[in-house]
């Protein structure tokens, strides 16, 4: 293919590596964080993802993409996987893969839906359900390097039981404001009735458009369409809204 020169570093990133599961953390009834040891991991930016490849004994092989949940941390890499009932890969990863088992992994991949510590503008993170995962990598990276960029997080989730990283997000993170929206059922005495994200949620919990924040929106297609559309209607420039959709891919 003409023009396709191979930068060395990129080629290195795209090599499949053996990843050994070192830890499994129960996040919710259906979500697990899987921590892998990946010898030779080149490091990553917050918001990037990896490809995971599973191969059956008969040689059948399939791949999925998962967002990185962790801040860069040597050769340790964490993914949070939501189990889909009719999934081919996610139930295997959440329920069957045992500590010590190997999968193949390559990456990091993606250079658009990322937050870099050099960015100085305010940041709005809008996550729906497991769409919180790459946003959490941004929050963790900011904390790991003691960055003071003002962050605001809007996290929309079905019910308190479906919330990811609850204890960690309860901790005080100076400069990170958090707003939780529940779509089906709320904690007791919660002031906002259950419902999907609205313009008023995004205007109260977000930044005024003239602050020129970069907005990262991640979740299901419906959630991203709604939230990104509302942000544009509120006056945010489409060029400052970056989206990532978690398809109904099983």
């Amino acid at each position, binding site marked *: 293919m003409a023009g*396709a020169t191979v930068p060395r570093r990129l080629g290195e990133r795209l090599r499949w590596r053996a990843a050994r599961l070192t830890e499994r953390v129960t996040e919710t009834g259906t979500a697990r964080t899987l921590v892998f040891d990946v010898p030779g991991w080149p490091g990553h930016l917050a918001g990037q993802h990896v490809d995971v490849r599973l191969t*059956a004994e008969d040689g059948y092989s399939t791949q999925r993409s998962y967002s990185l949940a962790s801040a860069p941390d040597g050769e340790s890499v964490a993914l949070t996987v939501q189990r889909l009932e009719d999934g081919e890969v996610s139930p295997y990863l959440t329920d069957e893969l045992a500590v010590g*088992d190997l999968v*193949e992994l390559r990456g990091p991949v993606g250079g*658009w839906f990322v937050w870099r510590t050099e960015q100085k503008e305010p940041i709005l993170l809008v996550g729906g359900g497991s769409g919180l995962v790459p946003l959490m990598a941004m929050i963790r990276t900011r904390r790991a390097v003691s960055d003071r960029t003002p962050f605001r997080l809007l996290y929309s989730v079905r019910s308190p039981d479906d919330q990811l990283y609850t204890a960690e997000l309860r901790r005080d993170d100076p400069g990170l404001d958090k707003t939780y929206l529940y779509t089906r059922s709320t904690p007791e005495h919660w002031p906002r009735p259950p419902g999907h994200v609205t313009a008023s949620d995004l205007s109260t919990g977000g930044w005024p458009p003239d602050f020129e924040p970069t907005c990262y929106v991640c979740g299901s297609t419906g959630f991203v369409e709604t939230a990104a559309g509302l942000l544009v209607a509120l006056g945010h420039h*489409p060029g400052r809204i970056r989206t990532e959709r978690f398809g*109904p891919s099983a």
Partner: protein
Amino acid sequence: MPIISRGFHGRARDPRHRLPPGQYETNGFPVLSTGPTPAVHLDQWEFTIRTETGARHSWDWTQFLALPDETPTVDLHCVTKWSKFDTDWQGVSLDVLLEDVETNADYALVRSYGDYTTNMPLEDLVDGQAWIAYRYDGEELDPEHGGPARLLIPHLYFWKSAKWVRGIQLLMEEERGFWETYGYHDYGDPWREQRYQGD
């Protein structure tokens, strides 16, 4: 040698053997895009082919709909690993649009409303391989799937099938589009698993 994942069996294999390596079949129609869905108004819509000499060929929506259409049924393969079989489209073949265009270009850069771009060799757009599609499954194309019109180039990974398409620039030298500058493959053949630069 790939590592065998202990206890992993996978789904029943597709009996039609039409899945490129690393892909799985979906019956849904997932959406991938980088930002908000742009609002494209039909009375302002225009599709333009611009050659390496600067010559322009353009069609407004009414002129575009008056062109002869085709109804291809094709398989889609997305770099995010899903494949969807037997999708039904209606659109104008690029052979029709390029018929009167004089060019020596080898490359194309496709441009969209919302500033998305993607690149491919010009020869991949001709010979019945690509369409500007405006209907999907018998309905007007949804904005989230690229409506009013998108490129359909099913023999390449689906990010090459630019949504909200507004034109094609013909180039003597290859110029990379949006995902390609972020490390995705210049060609993107699903059967050779060309996901990223270097694959």
